[in-house]
């Protein structure tokens, strides 16, 4: 059998992590991207840079700071301890927070581009038709940005599945909690269990290819407007 129970557990955990990360990211990134696309605030540039930061930082840097932040002396760790939740490091929740931060630019950027491409006109027309702003956003702006939305979802999901450095730094390799496919592969390679590594790694390559292929097909179908 190509996948032993440990591998199946890692696959299941990875899918769970990627799904939850994607849902959270769409909820966070949509208003953020809308704001970035529309605002004339002087905070736009620094916030935009901050959102893009995880794209260029090595995951080890991000993981290292997350580990410190989630620790008992870090701001996040002090907050969670004060709330009686204990520490988030080495937990699924901690991994989820790390993934959301790590994949944030992959969700924000396609959405922001989609909103920017719309221009102001549609929303103005909706306003003259007496649609309240929130109403107009959900009935006009968001449907128009659906390709951006789909792209953001696909990229967030795929990027979380491919996440490695951050998980290695804050995960602690706990089966069923923080041992995802990428760290499992790493463990197999280091332990010279190349057959198991091949199965998982091959599945990962196939998965990533299918994701990117569907993205390319979507792009051709919908025309421009996608990154």
């Amino acid at each position, binding site marked *: 059998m190509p996948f032993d129970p440990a591998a199946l557990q890692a696959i299941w955990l990875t899918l769970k992590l990627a799904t939850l990360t994607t849902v959270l990211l769409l909820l966070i990134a949509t208003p953020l991207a809308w704001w970035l696309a529309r605002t004339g605030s002087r905070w736009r540039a620094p916030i935009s840079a901050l959102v893009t930061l995880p794209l260029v930082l090595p995951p080890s840097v991000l993981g290292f700071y997350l*580990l*410190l932040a989630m620790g008992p002396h870090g701001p996040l760790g002090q907050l969670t301890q004060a709330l009686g939740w204990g*520490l988030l490091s*080495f937990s699924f929740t901690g991994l989820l927070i790390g993934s959301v931060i790590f994949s944030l630019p992959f969700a924000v950027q396609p959405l922001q581009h989609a909103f920017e491409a719309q221009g102001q006109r549609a929303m103005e027309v909706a306003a003259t038709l007496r649609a309240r702003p929130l109403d107009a956003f959900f009935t006009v702006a968001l449907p128009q940005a659906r390709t951006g939305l789909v792209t953001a979802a696909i990229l967030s999901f795929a990027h979380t599945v491919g996440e490695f450095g951050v998980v*290695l730094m804050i995960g*602690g*390799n706990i089966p069923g909690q923080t041992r995802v496919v990428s760290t499992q592969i790493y463990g197999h390679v*280091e332990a010279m269990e190349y057959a198991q590594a091949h199965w998982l790694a091959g599945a990962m390559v196939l998965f990533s290819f299918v994701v990117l292929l569907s993205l390319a097909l979507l792009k051709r179908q919908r025309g421009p407007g996608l990154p």
Partner: protein
Amino acid sequence: MKRMLAACFCALGLVLPTQAAEVSVAVAANFTAPMQKIAAAFEQDSGHQARLAFGSTGRFYAQIQQGAPFQLLLAADDETPARLEREGLGVAGSRFTYAIGRLVLWSPQPGLVDDQGLVLRQGRFDKLALADPKLAPYGAAAIESLTRLGLLQDLQAKFVQGENIAQAYQFVASGNAQLGLLALSQVHADGRLRAGSAWVLPAWLHRPIRQDALLLTQGKDNPAAAALLRYLQGDKARAIIRAHGYEF
């Protein structure tokens, strides 16, 4: 032009052997601190250069098998060097034990760890960090010790595993895990504990962690590699190794 080039190469050939050479060394993560000191002393005493790479022995094994340009291996165990020698990737007869490691239960918090390790039984901690037993000899020794102590079953749920012993240390030092089963050398310098509280596990709890060095085939003709191997067995290096909590 051709003749000039040839002359140049001849001159190089004449000059190189007498000049300082460079050796690249794969060093087990637990031996990081002492090796940095040893390499500095070695460079000063011999004029040779030592380039050090630190990591897990398992990864080094895979890399050396794939032709990584290491000339010397300071492993965290005795199995990996023996296997490399059998596979023809090491120079036969060059293998020797450069240090015997000790396992320590450590916390950065003073007073948390008592001198008999009772804290492990009382269970007043969330996480116990150790190195992945599949990859790191110190991780395997930790599992062996906990098994002998009859604690493996109870504590398994509290394990967090680092990819190597350096990462396990990082988990504890950053406070994310309260306790760690680490290499004594990581928390021990100049003959004493650097900070926190610790219990050095009795040697009978696990098989001795023999750390062997091996001259790799790629370093066969490198004078710096041979010199470093000799240097590791000298008094100066041994004093450094001992000060970091290793035995012989």
